[in-house]
């Protein structure tokens, strides 16, 4: 089943000069059609201004289509009368953890969303406890969020989403401001939620390594989808990605560079283990030649 259905989506916004006269219409999304299967892990790549964030904001109706249709769990974002109910299905996590934390104690922060949805107190307690458990932050329940690291704060933000029981979590560069270990904590947490609970994950990122374990990678350029495939398929297209101001993980780039020099390697190597194994094959065969 498809949790997200996007059909011929167009998003335009108008630009005005100082006298508020309309001078230009910018098309941020240009006829995007895309289905995302429930329970999948999808990474969206694309340069600054390619339309990634605009697309994500359409999924939970923070933006509404200029043209085309967006369906979340079968509900049309333009026609729905229950906008809040619809948004509950798709939680959103943003770049800066400090802008998303509002309470002075971790558990209050996590409870904020479900409380606003009118969840009764006994149930609320359970949800908060459970959500913190799932992101590995239960021990910090009574702490103050401002003493936490960036990675821990992002996991609190994710727990806040989980407490609303969403079917899908949209993440817009959740690791851009984190140190390497914080980045790994956040990415491992969302992979676990995806595997163990079947929550659909849409991850927008500029770190190519974070896309390697996704089920599917989508690349955007100029408001259009330009690539869509498994990480291996997409990262095999090194030159095309560079044209879109993207890159590939270092291990993939190294393999591609070696292949150009005549080393017999397959396309789209994604992990260190794969490269080492392939180079061992090369070494064995060169001994015999």
């Amino acid at each position, binding site marked *: 089943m498809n949790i997200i259905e996007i059909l011929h989506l167009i998003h335009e916004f108008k630009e005005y000069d100082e006298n508020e006269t309309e001078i230009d219409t910018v098309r941020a999304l240009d006829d995007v059609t895309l289905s995302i299967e429930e329970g999948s892990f999808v990474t969206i790549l694309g340069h600054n201004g390619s339309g990634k964030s605009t697309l994500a904001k359409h999924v939970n109706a923070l933006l509404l289509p200029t043209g085309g249709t967006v369906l979340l769990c079968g509900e049309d974002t333009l026609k729905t009368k229950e906008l809040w109910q619809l948004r509950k299905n798709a939680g959103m996590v943003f770049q800066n953890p400090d802008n998303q934390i509002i309470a002075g104690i971790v558990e209050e922060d996590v409870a904020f969303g479900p409380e606003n949805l009118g969840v009764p107190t006994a149930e609320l307690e359970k949800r908060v406890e459970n959500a913190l458990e799932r992101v590995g932050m239960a021990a910090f329940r009574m702490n103050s969020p401002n003493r936490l690291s960036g990675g821990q704060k992002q996991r609190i933000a994710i727990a806040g989403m989980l407490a609303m029981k969403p079917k899908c979590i949209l993440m817009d560069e959740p690791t851009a401001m984190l140190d390497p270990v914080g980045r790994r904590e956040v990415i491992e947490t969302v992979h676990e939620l995806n595997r163990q609970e079947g929550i659909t994950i849409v991850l927008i990122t500029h770190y190519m390594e974070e896309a390697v374990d996704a089920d599917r990678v989508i690349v955007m350029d100029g408001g259009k989808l330009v690539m869509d495939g498994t990480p291996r398929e997409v990262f095999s297209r090194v030159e095309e990605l560079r044209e879109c101001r993207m890159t590939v993980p270092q291990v993939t780039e190294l393999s591609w560079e070696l292949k150009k020099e005549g080393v017999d390697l397959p396309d789209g190597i994604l992990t260190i*283990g794969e490269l080492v194994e392939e180079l061992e094959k090369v070494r064995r065969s060169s001994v015999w030649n």
Partner: protein
Amino acid sequence: MELTLKNVSYSYNPDAPEPVYAVRDVSLTIRSGDFAALIGHTGSGKSTLIQFMNGLLKPTEGQVLFNGEDIFEKKYPLKTLRQKVGLVFQYPEHQLFEETVLKDICFGPKNMGLSKEEQEERARHAMKLVGLAESYEDKSPFELSGGEKRRVAIAGVLAMKPECLILDEPTAGLDPAGRDDILGTVRALSDEEGIAVVLVSHSMEDVAVYAERLFVMKKGELLYDDTPKAVFRHYKELEQIGLSAPQVTYIAHALREKGFDVSEDAMTVAELKQEILRVLGK
């Protein structure tokens, strides 16, 4: 130019029986032409340290010396120091405010009391340094892309002709090509203009390519001050403090474990490629 931190510490409660330190007993020196990166986990004291460097924050212990003079001595011209040691904050594009790019970049020189001609001459030179074409002069800073805005912000600091440029995570949130553009520009400023650069970064891959020296902070203390190669040899220690080595370093170690005699010091794709080709006899 020589900027020295001498046994600096910063504590929020220096008079308490057991003070809590954000920075503790750090000493380091930056000279003209240096290209250094400052790395460390969140909360390791990086931001506190760079605020000492241009006198925005006074250490509770120790001294900050610019060309041998203590910048926190009475009557030291801190305003002049802040022109010589330029600080570009995180997300500097949020600080753009003028109607046009040129006016925004002129803001610093204007505050220095320069004539309008001089302000604009400096602003135009700064635009050239960061690779912004003349056609950008009259644009509103707000209609530019993320990477372009950040260039405008950096140009605004460069227009004050700093001798040392400190950038706090200048590539956060930029796409890979944008990251290379900004870091390449900064690298050229250091090579061609001799400006000392201190780059705060969370990207080990980027610092491996661009920096000549790494300062590594751990819980407020300076753990390493060495070349990137020497620092990344400690990749296991780095992981324990929230950092890592570039992916290339891990590939090199994995290959060595399988008997490939590649150098463990390879830390960029280009270096490891040469090593592998050498070992394979290509």
